[in-house]
């Protein structure tokens, strides 16, 4: 490293070449970076606005859906029956009881939470009985608040956020009252991650 080799920036020729080598390597591999998109399964990450289809095949309507009642819906639904059976695609579509504001004729009286319990992934469900009116997991007894989707009792409630609040779906309704699922964003600060949770 004699004085003559140093350029105006105070960098030797060898260091400059090393830098070029490193830059060239990163540039050469840059096109391969988006290839990481191969790994997440597109069948669960490509999302669009779809009608809320109830188990009997009809579209949910906020004028007719009974108050304090829950059904299982599948989202995102695929053409593959095996994939549709997936617990991770099962949601509790709930119309809140009267006392929590389920009587309103708009989407705010509806909730849809991922059925996958945040504790150990059993499928919880909504119990409309007087005195319960909450989501209950059959496995270890986690209880979910139906208004927020946050666990308030049982092992899931002991988990730190975001793993104490269920992932949820948002709705839109047309002028006839027919309901649609808005395209969700899977992220802990948005609709949440199924089986992991959401920041309430």
């Amino acid at each position: 490293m004699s004085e003559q080799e140093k350029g105006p920036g105070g960098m030797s020729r060898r260091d400059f070449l090393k830098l070029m080598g490193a830059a060239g390597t990163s540039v050469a591999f840059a096109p391969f970076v988006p290839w990481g998109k191969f790994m997440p399964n597109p069948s669960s990450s490509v999302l669009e606005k779809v009608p809320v289809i109830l188990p009997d095949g009809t579209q949910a309507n906020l004028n007719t859906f009974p108050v304090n009642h829950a059904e299982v819906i599948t989202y995102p639904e695929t053409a593959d029956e095996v994939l549709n059976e997936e617990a991770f695609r099962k949601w509790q579509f709930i119309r809140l009881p009267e006392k929590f504001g389920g009587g309103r004729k708009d989407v705010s009286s509806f909730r849809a939470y991922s059925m996958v319990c945040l504790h150990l992934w059993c499928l919880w469900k909504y119990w409309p009985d007087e005195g319960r009116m909450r989501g209950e997991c059959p496995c270890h007894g986690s209880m979910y608040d139906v208004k927020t989707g946050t666990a308030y009792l049982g092992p899931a409630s002991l988990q730190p956020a975001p793993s104490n609040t269920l992932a949820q779906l948002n709705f839109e309704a047309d002028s006839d009252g027919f309901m649609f699922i808005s395209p969700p964003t899977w992220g802990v600060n948005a609709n949440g991650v199924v089986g992991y949770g959401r920041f309430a």
Partner: protein
Amino acid sequence: MAVSLERQNGLLTFIYWIWNELDRTIFTAIKFSFPSRFVSPFGFLGMLTFIMFITLGVTGALLMFYYEPIMTRSWDSVAFINNDVPFGFHIRNLHYHGSNAMVMLAILHMYYQYFSGRYKIRNEVLWVTGVILGTVTILEAFTGYDIIFSERAELAISIAASLTNSIPVAGPMIRELAFGAGFHDFVLRFYAQHVFILPIVMLGLMAVHFPRFLVFDVPMVMAICGAMCLAGGVFPVDLGFKFEPTVPPGITVPEWYLTGLYAFLRTQYVKFLTGVLWPALFIGALLLTPFLDRYKKFSWKDRPWVTAFGITGIAQILVTTYWGFYIPPDTTIPLVERLVIDPINLYLVMILLVPLSFGFTLMMIHLAKDAERKAKLAKANGPKKVSGINLSVKWTNWMLVALLAFQVFLNIAAYNAFLSGMNNVNLWITGVILITFAGFFHLYRYAMAQSKNIPKPPKFPTTKQIETSQESLPQTDVLPKTDVLPKTSGEKP
């Protein structure tokens, strides 16, 4: 075995040609030795682990012909293998018990190397790759029992995924990249990891981990394989219940090598700490062992701190392994209360085990050194003869014949059991056959070694010797008299 070199036919020439050609390959770098007498298996536990790896590769490849890694079909395909495919029961049980044996042998192998300080002879790379290999082995076993997709498998998958999720910031992304989203992806991807990715990683690590000197002890290998069959015969692995997301699962615990971790998870404390950081700390401590151990001597007796740490680790593993299994049988208590372990209880015991283990280690070192000193004293006082089993040629031959006859009987019995559909009895007898073969082989090599040790027969006595011996004959006849001689000899002069 004892092929005469004179009778060299074409096949033998071909084999020798191959053997010579191997000179140009990597194989000659590895020195295989086939012990001609009993050697302690502690020295070649690694080789036994590798034998299990090969066994698992073979049985696993066979299972792949029938297993279907699809969420709705995997349990049914395993049930089909277990109940309907001829020898499917055997293959599945060998695969299952082989995995347990491999994990167990790997753990024993590690602790033997740990306490004997073998990593000190410039073997740091072997040690580090070994610890990583052991971790991957457990992951491999874990992914294996997950893809049956029974109730227990589902809980195991959900714990694995929730632990990955619990990694700060990147957790959910890593989980989605590596495992996908949903059970369909999990089963398929765990399968890909189980049958290809992790074994390839293991083979790559093995390429570095293998030392140049390997011991292939035929009887011990046979005995281990036999033990695997025996275990399969006595404790055939069950199928569990098929996972149905709407049916609450019964109480299940993970495999024995993970119940230690499960005990920590059952404290319901932050998952990232209990399920990721604690095992990482344990593995990290093991990885650093050769660099922290600055003792000059090898023996555990001369490295009190290292030994005490090892004993503490083993004590904590044993206690947590049991604790992870233990669920209070009282069904009147709510399930969650039965499952949750009080963290204060658990961590207090963990801390309490440290002084206990240190004290135990110091006591053991003291006792061992004392025993060593006494043994030295005893040796100085006089030779101590160790009694061994010495069989004459005649009895060796009879034993070999008897073992062979026993094997014939066992073969008939095994065949009969198979024809009667008693799969587990058949597997059990197969285990006995292998162990009998181990005994047979050991006796054979013992006999071969003895035949080398037979003293040379005395030369044919010359006439002079005969004369002298004849002369001595009358002397022996009057032995009682010679007995009295010393006394009389004193009177003669």
